[in-house]
């Protein structure tokens, strides 16, 4: 199977973001970067499928030079080669929207004729959750999102989708297809020393997007939300406090 895994490099998940001067993005100079977590699970799934069915895993990412870090990490874990879409809208710092990314990725990936394209369900920074699905549309491939399990028997594909409230659904579709993968569906492997050594010799092909992108979303302003992360200690007599807690969980936190 020829599998593509699309990765995004995002600021470290637990980094407390600081705003840039324009207050429309974060200060990338202050940030450390890592592979988007759902994409890491997509990569792991891709590597497992390769182990099962043979073939190759090609990782793709769009972004500036620093993106090579996550491509190398993926190669160190077992991906065979990488495609780095860089230049144009991906040259500098700042956010790029899903349409621009998906269009550029689709352009770089079409000629490869992948059997399966995997990506995380959404990114840890912007979190629009669009790139994978837009990519499917641009590639003209069927797709499924928030996938918990993949059963590939080429040319057939059967996947388990996550639905609301503890419901699930199996969906079948023909390969080639695009899947967006849910976090936590497998156990991520670590980069072994041999993998890291081998990664140094693997190919990262640089590709420049051709067309000028049409941006569909701009961020007018980025700011910290009013609520801070302090613990809300509910005071009062037990019965009253309990009642108030239930109310808060229902109305404020909306978890009940």
């Amino acid at each position, binding site marked *: 199977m020829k599998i593509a895994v699309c990765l995004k490099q995002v600021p470290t998940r637990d980094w407390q973001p600081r705003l840039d001067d324009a207050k429309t993005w974060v200060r990338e100079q202050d940030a450390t970067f890592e592979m988007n977590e759902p994409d890491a699970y997509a990569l792991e799934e891709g590597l497992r499928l390769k182990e099962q069915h043979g073939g190759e895993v090609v990782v793709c990412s769009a972004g500036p030079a620093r993106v090579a870090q996550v491509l190398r990490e993926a190669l160190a874990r077992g991906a065979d080669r990488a495609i780095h879409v860089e230049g144009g809208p991906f040259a500098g710092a700042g956010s790029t929207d899903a349409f621009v990314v998906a269009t550029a990725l689709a352009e770089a990936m079409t000629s490869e004729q992948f059997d399966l394209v995997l990506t995380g369900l959404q990114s840890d920074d912007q979190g629009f959750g669009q790139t994978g699905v837009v990519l499917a549309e641009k590639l003209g491939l069927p*797709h499924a999102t928030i996938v918990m399990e993949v059963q590939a028997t080429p040319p057939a594909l059967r996947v388990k989708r996550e639905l609301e409230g503890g419901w699930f659904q199996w969906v079948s579709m023909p390969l080639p297809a695009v899947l967006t993968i849910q976090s936590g569906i497998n156990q991520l492997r670590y980069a072994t020393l041999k993998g890291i050594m081998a990664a140094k010799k693997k190919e990262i092909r640089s590709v420049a997007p051709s067309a000028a992108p049409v941006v569909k979303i701009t961020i007018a302003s980025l700011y910290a939300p009013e609520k801070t992360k302090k613990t809300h200690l509910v005071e009062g007599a037990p019965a009253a406090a309990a009642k108030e807690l239930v109310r808060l969980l229902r109305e404020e*936190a909306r978890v009940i």
Partner: protein
Amino acid sequence: MILVVAEQRGGKLNRATWESIAAAQQLAAGQPVTVAVVGAGVASVAAELAAAQVQEVVTIDAPALDPYTPDGFTAALAQAIDELAPSTVILPHTYQTRDFAPKLAARLDRALVTDVTAIKGLRAEGSGLGVVFVRPMFQGKLTADVVPQGPAPHVITTQIGSFRADQVVRGSAAAPVRALTVTIDAASIRQKPEAPFQEARQAVDLSQAERIVSVGRGIKEQGKLPLAQQLADALHAELAASRPICDAGWLPMERQVGSSGQTVAPKLYLALGISGAIQHLVGMKGSQTIVAINKDPDAPIFEVAAYGIVGDLFDIVPAMIEALKSPTS
């Protein structure tokens, strides 16, 4: 005109639709709002929706549209939007919407803003264009004001619970319902879905639980566990525990949360009588909302809890169970 795409399954309306209608009415500011229902045999759902103060309810009813598939829904809605020509399309940000909305937007080559929590900068004309949509970024650490670019329609999905369903303005009379004809080539639908199901509860899989009630040494004795179970039941939650409870055999090992047990990330993690030692913490720190009930105000669990009560869980938990019995206001 603002178009709201309702969600239904098997003839049952997804209540989140009302929130999207509330958002549409806010955005429209007096201008027309249309609601569309997609599926097969949706007449009763349409009738239900007609209670809102909207211009009309349109049904996009075809056998090929049941069950839901992204291919089918994208094709149908693309045609509908083409015909209806709304300035903005609003959907609730459900699992289903997340599955097809980006495809629809790409098909239309139009902007899509997902997971919107508020709308700002409304213009008097009420077309919805030039408006700013507020949504979370960086896992809620920051909030963004986002502006969709390009021509209408813009597609918006509203975060569940951000807009109040009870603020939907009802119509004085039922809105008219009409059918919209779309052509769906069933053969072009590539997905073949099976019936949705809930996981059989053979094995405990805490990692999939949406809500967890977890007990620690504060529960004192095995005989007191039923109290925690009652709270779990009232919350439709799974019961879990910290290591000493499982070591003592009061609960099976599969219910242990921590670095030597399960790692969980539910929407709600309620820690009863758990101090929050680091080996427990690393197993549940990913939970969205952590609630802690503990006698010790210095317990480390309060460092990570969003809500907490310092007190005796034997007083608090029964009161919570009572409070949960009465319905929401």
